């Protein structure tokens, strides 16, 4: 038997087989290249905005490779772009037949139904998605998100709520829901969700406040938030809820309501008045004196810890002083005008007594020193009790000699008291002690220099006064710069022209400081009679009027201004100011609205270029009850 020596590959069958093996992949390879190019081409059309052609190509590709998700997504995207919703729905439904549990696809299908205006089918599709097992929060998140994309905010909120029931977790999606509800302007709902979250995360009060602050700037939103917090608070006494509520009230400057809440906070946190004290300080800073007073009282009654008590007492006494000042303004509204009261006057009686009790309880401390200072200020500025005030201020140094800054303030006050007593020498000593102190504040130094300039003026040393005032006026930002400029202008105006009248005026002013008003008025009237043409005559008239107003002699003051307005109408430069003062007397002194309006209108008619016209107009509009 002979072996076949013919090579295996040389047989026809084998050759065909080999050839087929070699050439077989070629058609498949060319088909792949074709699809890749086609896909890129489709992408190109899509980017160029030719969605029809892109859709056609993607459809071809998908037909050839039905399981390819990239082709599917692209075609679906193009159909949406072309608003061919029915085609898109068909495409997606076909896909879902093979992959029914595809949650994302179902969610998207619902979206397509919605855009096509088929809302019922959209809801059904989303419900089907939510019915898929297993039930997880993520299902609900996906559906809610797709609803939000379709601006179905209420429906999305509803889905989040359903999730809680389905997943048996009542605290699911609190933050998401709060954000959604806030955007939908359901501030009550948004707050309720944040409170739910707070209940789970008790240490996150600041976070919740921050979230609430995003919308509590609006009054209606703050009100809704408060209602939600109050409702939650009814169910349980929770310090955090109370803090939130208190904060919300403070945001709205509702101090009485906030006070009630802080009482509760103090009780719940066992702060023993600490929370009340902090609230009282806040109310005091905001000048809600009546509420601050009650809060301080409450804190004191608690009782506060010993270390905090003097702060509370001092705060309480300060609010009494503040309340006195408010009452003072209401009963004596002609601003800046003073009539001496006594300690028997109701406005400051309580304050003085309380400051005295602090002195008794905390002798030789910062609190007693400050209390003496306050008493001295009230005695001098309100009661004009010079001896009493002096004694009080002298005590300040004894009580807290180490507090330098208070010492200079005291020296300035003592200087003013000495002027009021008529002792310019002692006053000068006091002021010079401040001027020469290297550690006095610049403002204290300026005030002291200004007061010394006044003393020079009273003494008739106008040149010395002018030098001092010029130095102060160099710094226009200084507190006393305006006062210095005013006095400087006055002196420069009159020193050269009517020096004798000026001296007389200075003496009258000195008497006025001593509240010797009758003598002061007499001197001023001499100036008017003796120097009718002088610029100083105007100032004399105005000063007479103001002194009469201070004394409550409204009719006399009206007479003075009337005289200026009639007898000096050709020469006076203060006519508009006089007319304005007349109107103010009617408005605030005699409380005659009609006469006040008429007087302000006369100012507008007679002095249209006066700088006071804008204020006069405002006063008229207020008196008329016009909305401003």
């Amino acid at each position, binding site marked *: 038997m002979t072996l076949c020596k013919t090579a295996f590959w040389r047989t026809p069958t084998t050759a065909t087989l080999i050839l087929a093996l070699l050439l077989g992949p070629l058609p498949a390879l060319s088909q792949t290249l074709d699809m890749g190019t086609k896909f890129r081409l489709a992408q190109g059309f899509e980017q160029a*905005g030719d*969605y029809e052609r892109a859709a056609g190509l993607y459809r071809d590709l998908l037909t050839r490779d039905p399981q390819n998700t990239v082709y599917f997504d692209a075609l679906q995207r193009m159909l*949406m*772009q072309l*608003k061919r919703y029915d085609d898109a729905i068909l495409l997606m439904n076909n896909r879902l037949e093979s992959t029914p549990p595809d949650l994302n696809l179902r969610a998207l299908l619902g979206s397509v139904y919605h*855009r096509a*205006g088929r809302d019922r089918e959209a809801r059904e599709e989303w419900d089907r998605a939510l019915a898929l097992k297993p039930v997880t929060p993520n299902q609900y998140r996906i559906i809610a998100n797709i609803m939000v994309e*379709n*601006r179905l*905010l209420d429906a999305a909120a509803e889905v989040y709520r359903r999730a809680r029931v389905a997943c048996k977790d009542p605290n699911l999606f609190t933050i998401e829901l709060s954000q959604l509800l*806030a*955007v*939908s*302007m359901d501030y009550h709902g948004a707050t309720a969700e944040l409170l739910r979250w707070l209940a789970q995360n008790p240490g996150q009060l600041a976070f919740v406040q921050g979230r609430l602050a*995003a*919308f509590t700037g609006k009054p209606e939103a703050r009100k809704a938030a408060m209602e939600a917090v109050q409702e939650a608070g009814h169910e349980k006494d929770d310090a955090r809820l109370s803090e939130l509520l208190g904060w919300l009230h403070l945001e709205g400057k509702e101090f009485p309501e906030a006070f009630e809440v802080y009482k509760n906070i103090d009780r719940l946190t066992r702060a023993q008045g600490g929370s009340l004290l902090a609230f009282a300080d806040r109310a005091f800073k905001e000048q809600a004196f009546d509420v601050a007073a009650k809060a301080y009282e409450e804190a004191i009654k608690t009782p506060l810890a010993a270390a905090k008590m003097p702060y509370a007492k001092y705060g309480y006494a300060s609010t009494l002083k503040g309340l006195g000042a408010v009452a003072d303004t209401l009963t004596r509204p002609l601003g800046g005008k003073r009539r001496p009261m006594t300690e028997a006057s109701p406005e400051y009686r309580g304050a003085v007594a309380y400051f005295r009790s602090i002195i008794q309880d905390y002798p030789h401390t910062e609190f007693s020193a400050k209390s003496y200072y306050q008493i001295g200020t009230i005695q001098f500025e309100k009661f004009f009790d010079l001896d009493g005030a002096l004694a009080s201020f002298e005590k300040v140094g004894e009580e807290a000699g180490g507090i330098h800054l208070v010492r200079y303030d005291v020296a300035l006050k003592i200087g003013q008291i000495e002027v009021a007593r008529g002792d310019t020498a002692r006053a000068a000593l006091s002021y010079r002690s401040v001027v020469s102190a290297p550690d006095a504040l610049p403002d204290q130094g300026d005030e002291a220099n200004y007061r010394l300039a006044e003393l020079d003026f009273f003494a008739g040393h106008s040149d010395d006064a002018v030098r001092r005032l010029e130095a102060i006026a160099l710094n226009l930002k200084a507190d006393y710069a305006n006062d210095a400029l005013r006095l400087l202008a006055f002196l420069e105006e009159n020193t050269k022209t009517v020096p004798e009248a000026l001296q007389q005026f200075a003496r009258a002013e000195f008497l006025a400081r001593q509240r010797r008003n009758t003598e002061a008025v007499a001197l001023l009237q001499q100036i008017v009679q003796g120097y009718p043409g002088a610029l100083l005559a105007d100032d004399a008239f105005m000063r007479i009027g103001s002194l009469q107003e201070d004394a409550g002699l409204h009719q006399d003051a009206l007479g003075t201004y009337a005289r200026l307005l009639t007898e000096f109408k050709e020469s006076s430069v203060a006519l508009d100011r006089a007319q304005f003062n007349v109107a103010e007397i009617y408005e605030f002194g005699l409380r005659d609205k009609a006469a006040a309006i008429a007087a302000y*209108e006369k100012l*507008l*008619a007679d002095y*249209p270029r006066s700088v006071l*016209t*804008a204020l006069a*107009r405002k006063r*008229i*509009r207020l008196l008329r009850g016009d909305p401003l």
Partner: protein
Amino acid sequence: MRRTLLAMILFGVLQATAQPKLLIFMDLKQTDHLKAYGIAYWALTRGLEADWLLNYRGGSFMLDNLDVVASECRIRGVAFAQISATEAVQIYADVQREDNNMDVIRLEKAPRVAVYVPPGFHPWDDAVTLALEYAEIKYEKLWDDEVLGGKLHEYDWLHLHHEDFTGQYGKFYASFAGASWYMEQQVLLENEAKKLGYRKVSELKKTVVQVIKEYVGNGGFMFAMCSATDTYDVALASGDVDICDAMYDGDPPDPNAQKKLDFSRTLAFTDFTLEMNPLRYEYSDIDQPPSDLLALQNPETDYFTLFEFSAKFDPVPTMLTQDHVNVIKGFLGQTTGFKKNTIKKTVTILAEKQGTDQVRYLHGNYGRGTFTFYGGHDPEDYQHAVGDPPTDLSLHKNSPGYRLILNNILFPAAKKKQQKT
């Protein structure tokens, strides 16, 4: 000769029956131009006579010389002069002379003013309401409910707030999509649309613009500023075509939207090209200069010029351009000015920036009513941004730019005269 004789007789009659008058001059001597309009309006609400002397001392007002009027002028800070009967007659005669480009317009009654604004609106957000508040001219607010509910006919004058009638929420998406005010505004508008039975805000606004157009056609006066001008016409032109992208209305726009615009529906603009980029702060090419190029504007050299019209033959544009200066400082807005070649030939151009194709102020008729469009946001705030503090008009009492707004408010009060050109 005959004309002279007639004038003399008229003069004689006037002298015989004349009374002292109160002249509120409106030239550079006036202390508060803006409140002066308020005085004229106030007088009309009290049934007092008021004449508008076109082109006389800046467009002055002549009222009866009553104490109550003088007092009110003083209280509001408006300068005036009390003139004798003879002087008044002389002024009227001068104004009515044939060779003077002046005329007298009798103001009959205070127009009922409405401002189209959404709830939660603040008057300081809008130049027109700022002007109304400052001049103490009463106005009512209304919105979509009232417009679709047929309330427009109760008013003589309608101001369109800086609204976006295309339903694209002012095209603030690119810069403010995440801002809480933007999201709230979107929710507010969507809820309103839903409440009124519309799936999309854009669909609601298209109905609103149509209703407003009918209001104008029936004799109403419409005044729009800034974006309310071009978006109004864009909404009209687009009809049922979807021009909003998905972030505005949930679905893509019609790719052939531009071709489907119908310019026969618009009031003022034609042949404009839509801006389809949803992220660009622009609606079309009507706006001149485009919002992207505002940074290149120089406030020091940005002015526009009022045209002069014949007071006797064109009283309406004359009234609308009364001012104490004729070159006015420019100011920007989302829609600052209007490209000239997009303006219909039937529209009257009242002011433009000289040497450019930028029109700032225009006026036209539709049916029995009229419309006026004024580009820019706030005449005394060159470039107002979201969140900027409001303009305090007490610091701009003599604003020539604001006077143009107030001209529009008084103009409906004018006794109708035949236009001779």
